[in-house]
């Protein structure tokens, strides 16, 4: 138990002493997981709009796949992305393995099904006549989509938070495709794994609290945004 309190004080010390290593890995985590979440949002919302509004044949099958995708084992994603990016793999010529971009790809693959599945549910929950009405009033498809997104924004922001949470807390795939390189691909989660491997549990716990703090601050911002009254 002492270790946990030491970890808390160490976390505060690291934050307020401006420790450059901690700021660097935190920045990497935010940059990488933020990018992955945005990609997941763009892909996930597109998929959700298509499935919810167009109701294509085989929708249930596709939805089952995305729902199952929420439980994609990150370690399997990491392995598959690694093999794709290996020098001998199909995308080897891009030289992306062991880079931040590789982590963004892996985390986006993990977060996209989460966003897609939850957003589809959110959009399907809207009154189906709403879209027809908006279109009948002369809105373009884009305008209709934006209006419906705003209508479902509470659930959509929940989907965004779930996607972000999946991305930033991920470590198995991150280490596999990123390589845990100091100053480049070392994120908060992979730094924690490294500190545990090196037996420095105090720093590992301190970094864990910093990670939790970062997630708490960001999710609070999202939640404030979510709970705000819609602009008239």
């Amino acid at each position, binding site marked *: 138990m002492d270790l946990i309190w030491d970890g808390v004080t160490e976390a505060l010390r690291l934050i307020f002493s401006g420790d450059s290593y901690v700021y660097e890995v935190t920045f990497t985590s935010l*940059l990488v997981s933020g*990018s992955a979440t*945005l990609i997941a949002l763009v892909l996930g919302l597109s998929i959700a709009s298509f499935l919810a509004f167009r109701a294509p044949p085989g929708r249930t099958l596709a939805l089952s796949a995305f729902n199952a995708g929420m439980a994609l084992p990150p370690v399997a994603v990491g392995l598959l992305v690694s093999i794709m990016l*290996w020098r001998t793999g199909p995308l080897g010529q891009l030289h992306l393995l062991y880079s931040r971009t590789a982590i963004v790809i892996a985390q986006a693959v993990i977060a996209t099904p989460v966003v897609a599945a939850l957003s589809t549910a959110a959009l399907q929950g809207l009154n189906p006549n709403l879209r027809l009405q908006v279109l009948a009033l002369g809105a373009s498809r884009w305008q209709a989509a934006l209006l419906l997104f705003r209508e479902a924004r509470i659930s959509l922001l929940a989907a965004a938070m779930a996607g972000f949470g999946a991305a930033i807390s991920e470590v198995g795939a991150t280490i596999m495709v990123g*390589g845990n390189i100091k100053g480049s*691909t070392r994120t908060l989660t992979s730094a924690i794994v490294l500190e545990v491997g090196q*037996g420095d549990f105090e720093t590992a716990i301190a970094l864990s609290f910093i990670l939790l703090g970062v997630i708490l601050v960001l999710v609070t911002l999202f939640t404030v945004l979510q709970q705000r009254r819609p602009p008239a």
Partner: protein
Amino acid sequence: MAVRLASLAVLLTSLALLDSSCGGDRNELILGATTSVQDTGLLDEIVRAFEGVTDYHIKPSIGGSGEVLAKARRGELDVIMTHSPADEDKFIADGEGLDKRPVMMNFFLIAGPEADPAGVRGAASMSEAFKRIAGGQSLFISRGDQSGTHLRELSIWGEADITPQGQPWYQESSTGQGQNLVVASDKDAYTLVDSSTFTVFEKRAGLRALLTDTEKPNIYSVIRVASDKHQNVNATGAIAFAEFITSPAGQCVIADFGMEEYGKSLFEPAARCPSANVGG
């Protein structure tokens, strides 16, 4: 909003891309190294020193010797540093690697609880100690991951003529060197560990070094992956790394490592470091 979101995504992604693609293809060097090199903290030092004198960017791929050699056989690595002599020799005999040179060494030791219920302390040899552990049915934690340490452990069991797999007192942790020691410590069990990792973990792990294998040092070698077999291998970068790590400059990085924190070198360089203090 969707447009703004999309442009932000593109911006951030290009930022991430920008950062990682710096240096270009020919400057990236993928180094395969084992967990003990990372867990002791030596890897970060080597990378920093090497990148300080060359234009290469090292991308480390960490795993047990078995995993590193398997990736090297696929041409995914440029140069490797492992400590699994028999597998390394086979790797070279198969034409997959070349130019094996010793870099540094440490010793394997049996770590165990202070009370030493099996009586490992008084054993005349490693295999004798393993016989006592098996005879006393004392808990033993194995790496179980085809790492250099695991293979050495298996060869000692072989010498002792014991098959530990499947025995209730024999457990495989399948973790890295440092984590394995923590598991053994938590269970008050015996385990085989290299002296460098043990030194780093000595304060935290409640285990004692009971018997050190001074007869057979644990030698880490650098091997270049054969570029005639794998066309993507960065041969010039691999040569630069092999030259650096065996040069006086590289050997001194190894000799100096650990001096400040532990008062001794964690790994013994294969050649002497000219500027090191006596006995360095």
